[in-house]
């Protein structure tokens, strides 16, 4: 966490003037944002638009985690990376693009996979976490680290023409394990390389995810704690469904947690967090 910020510079007042005009946000919200730090796990289809709008809005510090390098097949949705970045680490590429947009934000690129040995310490350095990852082990790892560190987790996902968004571990709301106590069988998991995705679908979800992060960081509070937004891009449908509350018997956020340290999530899920050559899966 960053120290509180007492005032904006003249340049910042000009830059954020359209937000400062909003009575619900105002100077108070902007100062809270400037003192807030957000960890972005994954600089792909969700992380790019999310980081773009968080940087533009003036969050104080943005941590950018991604072990991967930019490939041509990313460019149809990962809009922070350009053609000349092919082969560069996504975390560094994202930071470089964001710096052009807003150099007043502090960017901390981590060009490595989030791993159980260091995730907890990393998450503790940030106020809010955005899960923009693309695989099951990382989603459990991020969740457990957020619960153990006491951080709210804004989670989105996208595949084909669909997207999901929710906020975990905020107030009395559930965590990811409350909803999904057991990981899905590995053969039922589809990623974007297998199933395809229309790039603007993670675009929509990443923007909505950024909005939830901004509402948490400025004190307005999230809209999707304990509920889940389903987006169907083919029909243009949005649907909000009600999730269960926090489960007293949850393995990590429950009353007698059995998960008190981070685990081997690849073993837990029976799949890899980084291997890109997984066999084609059906679902």
């Amino acid at each position, binding site marked *: 966490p960053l120290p509180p910020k007492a005032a904006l510079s003249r340049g910042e007042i000009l830059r954020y003037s359209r937000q400062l005009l909003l009575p619900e946000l105002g100077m108070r919200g902007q100062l809270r944002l400037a003192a807030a730090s957000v960890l972005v796990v*994954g600089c*792909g*289809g*969700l*992380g790019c638009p999310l980081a773009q709008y968080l940087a533009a809005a003036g969050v104080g510090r943005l941590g950018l985690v991604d072990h991967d390098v930019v490939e041509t097949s990313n460019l149809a949705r990962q809009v922070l990376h350009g053609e000349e970045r092919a082969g560069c680490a996504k975390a560094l590429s994202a930071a470089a693009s964001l710096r052009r947009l807003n150099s007043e934000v502090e960017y901390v690129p981590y060009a490595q996979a989030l791993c159980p040995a260091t995730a907890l310490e990393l998450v503790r350095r940030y106020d809010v976490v955005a899960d*923009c*990852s*693309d*695989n*099951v082990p990382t*989603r459990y790892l991020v969740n457990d680290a957020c619960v153990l560190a006491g951080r709210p987790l804004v989670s*989105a*996902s*996208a*595949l*084909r023409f*669909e*997207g*999901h968004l929710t906020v975990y571990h905020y107030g009395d709301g559930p965590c990811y394990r409350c*909803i*999904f*106590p*057991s*990981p*899905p*069988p590995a*053969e*039922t*998991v*589809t*990623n*974007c390389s297998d*199933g395809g*995705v229309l790039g603007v679908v*993670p675009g929509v979800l990443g923007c909505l995810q950024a909005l939830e992060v901004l509402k948490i960081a400025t004190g307005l509070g999230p809209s999707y704690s304990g509920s*889940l937004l*389903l987006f*169907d891009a083919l029909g243009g449908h949005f*649907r*909000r*469904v*009600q*999730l*269960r509350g926090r*489960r007293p018997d949850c393995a990590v956020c429950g009353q007698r947690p059995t998960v008190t340290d981070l685990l081997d999530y690849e073993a837990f899920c029976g799949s890899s967090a980084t291997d890109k050559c997984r066999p084609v899966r*059906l*679902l």
Partner: protein
Amino acid sequence: MAAPLCVEVEFGGGAELLFDGVKKHQVTLSGQEGPWDIRNLLVWIKKNLLKERPELFIQGDSVRPGILVLINDSDWELLGELDYQLQDQDSILFISTLHGG
């Protein structure tokens, strides 16, 4: 003997791919001895709607991990899960969670 029921069964998040890609199914459940609950509905779906590889949808007598069940847009955990007794015109949504980013 319970009366027949009409319910809407929906699939999403990729689960529809096990059902010929059809997301919405209007389903009529005939009258039977006991009431219709989600446990019975899953058996009915497996027998009448599932086109392929039932193990990707059903595990034991429940849905496989990673599928979220929503009854009238509420998490089934709030409503008794497998024991929830279906009402006429209920909407039951099975969502396969997405992990892509």
